[in-house]
């Protein structure tokens, strides 16, 4: 046999199958218990508002096709996290995917697509909390999608060469994840300030801003951001070479024409 296959995962859970990106999941998919109601309730409210606007915007673009289109985009957003890439050190990594989805489908569709993927992940797989759904969707579906899309639009002109677009997609994935991690760190870091008992003991996330921000920013600047950037760049470049018309950010006509 050329390569030994381990089928144990089909029958049961195996800790040996964890890769570097699974640690990203621990950090980026905020579980229940870390955020106080003072944080998660407003974030649910903001997310609901943005989601309502997003559905209307997408409906304008694709008319009656909005439901199957967004369903497909959401499934693709979920699926993209399954693709692993070898990273130095012998392990593998996968992307959050919001940057790719935003570039391929546009930021409004990405908001819905990534949110639906996150909701299914939280409900079926237990990745991310129920109370934290608003926070996770706001961070990864709304904030990350818009940041990634507009960074790409700013740097990656269609007329520029493939190398420039590869670089733009990398920067878009890299910076959007780093900035999202800092946003999540702020949400974690304010918990000891807004939710402590009378003796100063933290009731939710115990790490304040001085710990949460450096911890999250450093690992995303040095590891996870690079993985996100590489995967975003690989996918966008492949689409560009084979069927650039599928890339929303390059689609001709209207406000999305970048040429």
């Amino acid at each position, binding site marked *: 046999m*050329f*390569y*030994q296959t*381990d089928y144990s*995962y*089909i029958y049961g*859970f195996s800790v040996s*199958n964890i890769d570097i990106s699974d640690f990203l999941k621990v*950090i980026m998919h905020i*579980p*229940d*218990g870390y955020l*106080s109601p003072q944080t*998660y309730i407003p974030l649910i409210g903001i997310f609901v508002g943005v989601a*309502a606007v997003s*559905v209307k915007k997408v409906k304008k673009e694709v008319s*009656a*096709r909005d*439901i*199957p289109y967004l*369903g*497909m985009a*959401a*499934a*693709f957003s*979920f*699926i*993209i996290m*399954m*693709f*692993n*890439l*070898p990273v130095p050190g*012998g392990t*593998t990594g*996968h992307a959050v995917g919001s940057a790719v989805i935003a570039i391929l489908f546009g930021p409004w569709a990405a908001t819905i697509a990534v949110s*639906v993927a996150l909701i*299914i992940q*939280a*409900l*079926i*797989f*237990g*990745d991310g*909390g*129920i*109370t934290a759904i608003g926070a996770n969707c706001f961070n990864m579906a709304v904030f990350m999608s818009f940041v990634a899309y507009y960074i790409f639009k700013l740097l990656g002109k269609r007329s520029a060469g493939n190398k420039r677009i590869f670089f733009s997609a990398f920067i878009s994935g890299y910076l959007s994840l780093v900035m999202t991690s800092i946003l999540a760190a702020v949400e974690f870091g304010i918990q000891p300030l807004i939710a402590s008992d009378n*003796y100063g*003991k*933290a*009731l*939710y*996330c*115990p*790490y304040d801003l*001085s710990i949460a921000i450096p911890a999250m920013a450093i690992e995303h600047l040095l590891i996870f951001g690079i993985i996100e950037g590489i995967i975003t760049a*690989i996918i966008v*470049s*492949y*689409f560009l070479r084979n069927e650039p018309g599928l890339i929303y950010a390059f689609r001709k006509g209207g406000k999305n024409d970048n040429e």
Partner: protein
Amino acid sequence: MGNKIPPYLLNPGVGRNGSVKLQGAKLSFLDKTILNAATAVKSIYLQEENATKENPVQKINPDVKLFSLIFLVVVISIINNLVAQIIVTAVILIFYIVSRIRVFEVYRKIFFLAFMFGFVVVFPASLNIITQGEIVFNLISLDKPLRFWIYYIPQDIGFTLNGFHVVFMVFLRVLNSVSLALLIIYTTSFPAFIKSFRIFRVPDTFLMIITLAYKYIIILSRTIEETYFALKSRLSGNIKNSNIRRLIGGRIYFIFKRSMIIYEGTYYAMVSRGYQGKVMIHSPKHFTVIDFITLIIVIAFGIGIILI
């Protein structure tokens, strides 16, 4: 009779240029992707299988179960009493046993998630560097306290009682929330559960998107599994990094195209059934006496737990 098989085929780990480690490391991305797809399919099948089993929890109206889930998860998030959290843990475990869910298999997953999300990340908070309090177990004693920039390291570093309280509180919150969510999900058909979000005025369009995405995920996960198994059976030796990138890009592109085909097909199927851009989801299941009793018990339990 002599062995005519080439040596590189008899040695499982050696590539054509003899780089054993590199081959395994590079090809592990195939295994990991197959694993991810298989885990997704397995979780969905496990959920469907459990959801269709006849048991007392399964019979409860999905609307009541959704309300109970949201209400109790909020309760779990606001209580700061360890005893109350442990009672919730015990009650959820009893419901798992009553529901005849594969307790061992599901709890293995729950404990892993709770350990990763609720313990590993929070454990350093049990030290007095993070959580102030009386040291119950001293780890290191420095010559003098250290201060640099905005950070302060006390002279004695050790675990505090307050710190342990914080760690176990977060751990139990994660454990209880995950186990409660999975209990409800494993005893309810997913489409029925999604429909029940109408009680919170979530628009039908959004619910339809979730339901469709869920179905697409099953189809696409299986496609990935099959594609990668086929790919794996054809790959050997060393692969250049640029080829790996092209290979992954190509698979994602293929999945994207496949998604587009499925989406087009779904749209035309919907149109042929009279779809004109508006959806209305019907929830035919009516409330029974058992549903009302469940609702009252859940609310009473939640209030009781808050008052402990």
